């Protein structure tokens, strides 16, 4: 695999339709930052993921995506060995990371540049992006 850009050799990811509800997440990485919905209430400022129509903390309706730091910690992971998807080599890691803004702000993700043997719970990581068709930037994570 040396000298080969692995990600570009892989078949496209199975991405959702981009809608008014989710575009900030899937397209927001164009500026190199991860965007998460946030309550704009001055006294609340609660982060919300996945998207919702009201703030689950204060009930406020004024919500807008904001960039987060992109720093996170691996909370759980699996090394997938099953070749579910033709053309995607195994094994690869699927992880759940906790964003530093709040522990229960968790995302499922991949850690494609981290050697499998280095992945462990508690590993500090930071966001990176993989461009995809349609202006999508898939948030992934790499070593912090």
């Amino acid at each position, binding site marked *: 695999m040396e000298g080969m850009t692995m990600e570009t050799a892989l078949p496209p990811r199975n991405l959702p*339709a981009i809608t008014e509800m989710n575009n900030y997440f899937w397209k927001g990485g164009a500026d190199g930052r991860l965007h998460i919905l946030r309550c704009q209430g001055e006294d609340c400022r609660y982060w919300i993921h*996945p998207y919702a129509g009201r703030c689950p903390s204060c009930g406020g309706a004024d919500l807008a995506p904001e960039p987060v730091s992109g720093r996170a910690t691996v909370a759980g992971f*699996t090394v997938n060995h099953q070749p579910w998807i*033709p053309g995607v080599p195994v094994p690869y890691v699927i992880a759940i990371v906790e964003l530093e803004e709040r522990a229960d702000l968790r995302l499922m993700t991949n850690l494609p540049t981290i050697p499998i043997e280095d992945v462990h719970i508690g590993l500090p990581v930071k966001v990176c992006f993989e461009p995809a068709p349609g202006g999508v930037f898939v948030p992934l994570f790499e070593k912090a």
Partner: protein
Amino acid sequence: MAKYAEKDCAISGVGQSEIFRKPQVLPFELALRACERAIADAGLTAADIDGVACWPMTPAGTAYGFGAASIPDVCQSLGIRPAWWSEASVAAQISPIMEAVAAIAAGYATHVLCFRAVGQRWIPADGGAAGEGNHPAPVAGYEFMIPYRAPSAANWIACHASTHMTHYGITREQMGWIPVVQRRNAGLNPQAIYRHPFTIEEYLQARMISTPFSLLDCDIPCDGTTAVIVSRADAARDLPNPPIVIEAIAAGGQERMETWLARPDYPHMALHDATKRMWNRTDLKPSDVDTAHLYDGFTWLTMVWMEAFGFCGEGESGAFIEGGQRISLDGELPLNPNGGQLSEGRMHGLGFVHEAVLQLRGQAGARQAKKAVNVSAVGAGGGSLGGAMLLRRES
């Protein structure tokens, strides 16, 4: 204690079709056989059935797939004229039973036919579509998971398992006792798809799917149907089999698939809500339970169900099952005597109810638990879904 309607409801009949690993009989036909058997087991006829409930929602004309039979088609075929029906999803795979309780309490029905028809082997629906790279775009509920080349529940549950097992030091050497013991039980169950025993050493050699789950940690997709009749308790007392009373039943939270990743109590899941709510509806205690019938789509789920029910402390399930003695047929808490979904086949939730009723009636044959069985616990689901139930013999 408040008045809880399920205590006035009983399971009066159970029925199961043949279970097939390979497509052999149209799954819709299997659904009809299970329903006919459950109605006959209850000593009833189609004319007595005035309510029908199934999970999941299944459109008319369906003959196979994730849901393999619809309520209108079952009613049309068997001559049932229901005054009430439901396809709700609140309590995972045992939702039909929870719905039936509500219908009986409201006076809409007296005898409710509940069924779960699985028929995913009949078409290459899941494996085939994936094998051809032909996935539908993920919709809300899965959109933050599927794009990460995580198409299977094995991947999603495995992440939770890694957090829990690492935190409590639970090992695969311990987890393996669930499939080992259940396979030994399955050897006594003529319905089970896989009946040959294996050792813990053989378990540890099995092909890895998604750590910590190997092939032997994953349940067996199959075609087949389980049906259960829930009756008003006073009406059940006139019927041939001893009524099995629903002591308590409760549901977990209905969450988006991604929100169960985001619970403040991660890696807890909806099933933890279900067991907590269930215990609030009964004076019985975990020590009163004689047999456990706990969801085993993946072995780790069974361990977490044991902890959530309080059969052992949080994080203590590994030590509890190690060696297998305590969960064997002659142990203190026989677990999945039919072999569970890991060996009998993925009858998807109602299979556990079927087995609990047989154990409580003393009709489980060679796999009957050695102890007297007066109270049985059923846990169905994992991830975003959970339903918990206690069944008991009428005292």
